[in-house]
């Protein structure tokens, strides 16, 4: 019966597609996003954030027949980090600074464009970027680099409401795609390099009124405040700049938090610095915290834990369990129980020397390196915010990596001044005495050679934390990952290749040079019976489908 159902289900879906077309995106549809694989309804594809498509037209045998169907060129030379939404035959993308464009996903032609002019006071730390949208009803939601949240009519691109999240001149920004849960749109703020006090807040999707707000750095009346000294918490960071996940059965929404401030001078902020570098499990209706898990207490290395929380239901020691899978910037892969926050397992997936391991509760055992010596992983982490994937088919967790990559950290006492950088130090070359290479390479010459780092994709078995396979790249990997029901894995990278791997073995099956760094995640969707795969690379969005 089960096999029959599996065979018939895609046919059943194909039958349903015409009826699903043009209905509004109800909260109910968002709950069951994977039941309509022709669409891509949220930033991570579903509330479980697995970035796993159930479409099967493209498979390991025919993936070599993928051909470019269209290109959408962004009217911006900023980094292009968008993940599109595809809803009932219409694609919605963002381009820098804060434009939204509705695009025909078959031809790449635009229906409309909404332009938002951010305040000149905006000062996002690391590029004027936007990573995508959320949608419910006929409304799209975009967070802006000047820390506003804007609702936009998906039919004609007009703004419906606009609320200010925080003061852009103080260093607050917003770059993530928001997350809609029921009748609320949830968003966080960036600004960890400016000593902001991070928060996550929820707004009514219709009115834009704030429903709840959760500060990631507790004030004197909130639990966790004793992890700070004096007034350090007031500019304690804990920014939230990547999209969270949601478990409807538990009604918990999960969000990763960024570094404590100042980034690299922990002596200025004694204590564990809660809830920086943590995952927070919040009641989706009230924002109240049910549990937290801090990955890197008293972080000296800028190990933001803003990675997208990947939710999986799998057997753990013989019984089914609600898991959370997390490849952290600090170089460890974690498995948590997402009902309670209990640490279940953790192992390094890259070279790590800042900690000798994790104790029974998942707390790292610190091994600070001598002054002038490199710490592994380096400042950009063993991975960063690049969206990972989990395939229920293979049971593997897939992660983009920076490997054998270190940084010499040097803390410097820094006075907090609103709106100015509050990083507390410098990062000299990881090679003692050598010139410090540029951190983020751009352009066609690879200055980021093997002397600095290399990267790739790792497939991790969550049950053991061991790597099942490893796909090596000469350069580091800045790309998100997509897996499909046909055991394909799509990934880009800093080199600009868009690649299809066998998700079971890591074997390269297809590649194309797109000529620009890939700092976004691939998605898949289906329109008029044709499965597409898109990826943003350089300054353009590329759409592929099988040759006719």
């Amino acid at each position, binding site marked *: 019966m089960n096999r029959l159902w599996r065979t018939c289900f895609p046919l059943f879906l194909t039958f349903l597609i015409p009826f699903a077309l043009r209905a509004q995106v109800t909260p109910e549809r968002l709950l069951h996003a994977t039941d309509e694989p022709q669409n891509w309804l949220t930033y991570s594809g579903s509330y479980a954030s697995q970035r796993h498509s159930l479409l099967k037209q493209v498979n390991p045998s025919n993936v070599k027949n993928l051909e470019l169907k269209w290109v959408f060129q962004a009217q911006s030379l900023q980094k292009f980090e968008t993940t599109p939404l595809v809803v009932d035959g219409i694609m919605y993308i963002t381009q820098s600074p804060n434009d939204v464009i509705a695009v025909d996903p078959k031809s790449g032609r635009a229906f409309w464009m909404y332009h938002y002019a951010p305040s000149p006071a905006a000062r996002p730390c690391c590029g004027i970027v936007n990573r995508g949208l959320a949608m419910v009803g006929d409304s799209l939601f975009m967070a802006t680099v000047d820390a506003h949240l804007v609702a936009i009519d998906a039919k004609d691109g007009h*703004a419906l409401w606009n609320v200010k999240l925080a003061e852009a001149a103080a260093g607050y920004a917003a770059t993530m795609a928001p997350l809609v849960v029921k009748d609320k749109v949830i968003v966080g703020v960036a600004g960890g390099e400016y000593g902001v006090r991070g928060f996550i807040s929820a707004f009514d999707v219709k009115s834009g009124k704030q429903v709840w707000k959760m500060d990631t750095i507790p004030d004197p009346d909130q639990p966790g405040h004793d992890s700070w000294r004096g007034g350090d918490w007031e500019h304690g960071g804990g920014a939230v700049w990547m999209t969270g996940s949601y478990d409807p059965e538990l009604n918990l929404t999960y969000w990763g938090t960024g570094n404590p401030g100042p980034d690299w001078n922990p002596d200025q902020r004694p204590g564990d610095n809660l809830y920086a570098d943590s995952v927070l499990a919040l009641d989706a209706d009230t924002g109240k915290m049910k549990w937290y898990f801090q990955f890197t207490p008293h972080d000296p290395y800028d190990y933001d834990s803003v990675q997208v929380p990947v939710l999986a239901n799998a057997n753990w020691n013989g019984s089914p369990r609600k898991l959370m899978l997390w490849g952290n910037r600090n170089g460890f892969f974690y498995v948590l129980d997402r009902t309670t926050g209990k640490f279940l397992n953790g192992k390094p997936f890259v070279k790590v020397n800042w900690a000798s391991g994790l104790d029974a509760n998942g707390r790292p055992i610190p091994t600070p390196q001598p002054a002038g010596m490199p710490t592994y992983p380096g400042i950009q982490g063993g991975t960063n915010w690049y969206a990972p994937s989990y395939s229920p088919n293979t049971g593997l967790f897939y992660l983009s990596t920076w490997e054998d990559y270190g940084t010499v950290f040097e803390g410097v006492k820094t006075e907090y001044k609103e709106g100015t950088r509050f990083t507390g130090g410098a990062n000299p070359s990881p090679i003692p005495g050598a010139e410090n290479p540029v951190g983020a390479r751009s352009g066609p010459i690879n200055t980021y050679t093997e002397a600095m780092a290399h990267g790739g994709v790792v497939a991790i078995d969550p049950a053991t934390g061991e790597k099942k396979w490893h796909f090596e790249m000469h350069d580091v990997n800045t790309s998100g990952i997509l897996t499909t029901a046909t055991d394909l894995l799509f990934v880009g990278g800093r080199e600009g290749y868009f690649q299809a791997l066998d998700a079971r073995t890591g074997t390269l099956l297809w590649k194309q040079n797109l000529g620009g760094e890939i700092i976004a995640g691939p998605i898949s969707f289906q329109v008029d019976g044709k499965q597409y795969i898109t990826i943003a690379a350089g300054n353009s969005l590329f759409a592929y489908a099988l040759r006719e």
Partner: protein
Amino acid sequence: MVATGERDGVVPSFAATRIGTMVPLEPSQLRLPGVYFALRNQKWMCKVENLSQGEGLFVKIREYFLDAKWFCALCYLFYVALGGPAVRAQGQDRAPEYYPADIQYGAQIFSTQCTTCHGTSGDLIPGVNFRAGVFKRVVSDNDLRATITNGVPGTGMLPFAFGASELTGIVSYLRNMSTLDGKGIMVGNVARGQALFTGAGNCSGCHAVNGKGPRVAPDLGDVGNLRTADLLHRTLIDPAGSMLPVNRSVHAVTKDGKSINGRRLNEDTYTVQLIDEQEHLVSLTKSDLREFTVLKTTTMPSYKDKFSAQEQADVEAYLLSLKGVK
């Protein structure tokens, strides 16, 4: 010996421009057998003969002429003398025409935003008199826009964050203050205009405002930023003549006979994108169509006779107040 060559050296005296004059030179200047010399201030060029006479080096001026850049400068002076700048001022510094609706809109803004300092006649600031066209630093319309937008540092003139249509209005008013009959200004009322928009005018039967309402016609939530008062007035009077061509209605019939009507959003050689009557975004491939027509007409009625002048001004005032979601 007469020779020509590259320009080199500087002859020390303007007096040397006379033909036949002997000009003394330093030995270092005589490195070419024959040269064009630039005279003092580089105004004159001259062709010379090299001569050596007595103890010093001399050249003899054979002919002289004006240097090219000075020739150009002279031409410009003639142009100025012949009244060129006056032509330019009419052609570029000011708009060719200022429209009544813009002037009226500008008058309203002026009365609320500018009179505290400038006075109702625009002459309270010493050295500035709008009616008389006397400004301290403004020449062109663009100067006016820039001064209003940026303010004047160190003075009481603060920067004003006006939109393009508001600036057009203010500039139009300032340029016409001297001839304007204040009694003739039709001041629109925003609240009355909104009531007409949703009521007698039935504008809201087709247009949404910030997402509230139908999408048959464009959302007007930020039309006050996008269109000037004059353009809005002309749209009310002659909708088909002033609509943006991209917004035109389209009619398509697919090869299998399906009829599609909608408002065009975008079009290229091979495809067209529209919002159909059911408010769906639709992208059509032209080769799949049996029929495709872009209509030059519009279903929007003219309000020329439907609304009185006052009602038109009211609706325009309401539309101009729509500045988008802040």
